[in-house]
């Protein structure tokens, strides 16, 4: 008897798996109609805590995709620009910043119809 069972197992090993998969919950989700769970550390949008930024340009130097640019006139008058379409969302800017200013949130990136939507001004400081 055991030999027959073994023989059946060699021909149909997938049979119990099929039936258990048939009766359990499916693993895929109907994406546009049901949203999925995003973990907290997901590298999504780049955003900034404005009061901490001093315009040191460490993030600009370290960005592998040249997606950040700093236009600096003086110590208190500078603009930090982020090009969202060049960015690879790698997180190197968050790692390089020493003042805990630039960080990544866990939101999905929204698509847009024209390129101007991707030009984002992160810090616009107007001093002397």
């Amino acid at each position, binding site marked *: 008897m055991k030999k027959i069972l073994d023989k059946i*197992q*060699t*021909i149909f*090993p*997938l049979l119990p*798996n*099929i039936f258990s*998969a048939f009766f359990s919950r499916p*693993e895929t989700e109907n994406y546009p109609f049901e949203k999925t769970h995003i*973990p907290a*550390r*997901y*590298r999504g949008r780049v955003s900034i805590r404005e009061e901490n930024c001093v315009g040191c340009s460490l993030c600009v*130097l*370290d*960005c*592998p*995709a040249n997606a950040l640019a700093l236009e600096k006139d003086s110590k208190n008058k500078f603009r930090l620009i982020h090009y969202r379409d060049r960015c*690879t*969302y*790698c*997180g*190197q800017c968050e*790692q*390089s910043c020493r003042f805990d200013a630039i960080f*990544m949130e866990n939101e999905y990136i929204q698509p847009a119809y024209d390129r101007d939507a991707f030009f984002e001004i992160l810090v616009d400081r107007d001093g002397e």
Partner: protein
Amino acid sequence: MSRVTIPIGPQHPLLKEPMSFNITLEGENVIDSALRLGYVHRGIEKLAETRSFIQNITLFERVCGICSHIHTTTYCQAVEGLLELEVPRRAVYIRMLLCELERIHSHLLWMGVLAKNIGLNTVFMYSWRDREIVLDLMEEISGGRVSHAINTIGGVRKDLKEGQVQKLSEGLSVLSERVDELLRIVDNDRSFKARTQGIGFLSEEDVRRYCVVGPVARASGVDVDLRKNVPYACYDELSFKVVSMTEGDVWARSMVRIHETSEAIRLCEQIIEKLPEGEIAATAKRKVPAGEFISRSEAPRGEVVYFVKSDGSQTPARVKVRTPTLTALITLPRQLSGLQMADVSAVVAGVDLCIACADR
């Protein structure tokens, strides 16, 4: 009978990435095949000379999609060797954890691809369902499913929190049951064996002559695993087995890879248990002193070698990468000769190609 040349060309449902080989058929048997690579060449090694050492971490992550973490680990090890920097032990353990998780991910993906090429769509869906567990775990730890971006020169970027360790243990226990199921299927299924046994044979002397590495070599009896032979990154403190078989055909490679997946799960459990306390990164200078360093590691497909040469500035002078898929690809014409047309798909999937790695 006349000879026909079929292009298994740059675009084909068999291949994940573009590569071309033209098979010459006579009747149903394959006589010859001519390989052409270079469709995915992006000039990464030359690009690396124009960017700083820190920017290169992100660049080398994108050499390959599946073994991305191993590439960055090897690169960071090379630069840390040049800087003569001591990496804290907790960082090394977290790096090893992600390396092993990536190994599990890569082998499960490969299993699905082999099953799909043979015709077993069900096993394809099952192994990719199990792969989702690993991907979710990696996303919890590092922030991305495939591109982890967790290495930095001197250590890792993010730490493992308590809740994450618990999720890891649960996920790993579910995975180990499912991998045992997969092993039972591959070991027993007669139709699977009928398609994979006896084809794509590589003898041991062929393996040594072509310098093949990785699971392809281990399935032919050559017992070479860098984690045991030349331990890097604290692998000498963990215990695991190196699996090898002697048949050398596609079935032996499947068995070797599934056993390796079980071993990787056990390694992950050991790493979580033994995780030491401490810092997660050491600060690294931006200017790297002049010198050369070679660092090697064991990717899911074999041995990866990085040679980094610096001339004292902030950008490297030369980076050379040798990836394991190239060694396996060269043996393909030899494996394919004498087979039937229908076996080509099984052999091509059994070698576990990653053309992006091979072309760089």
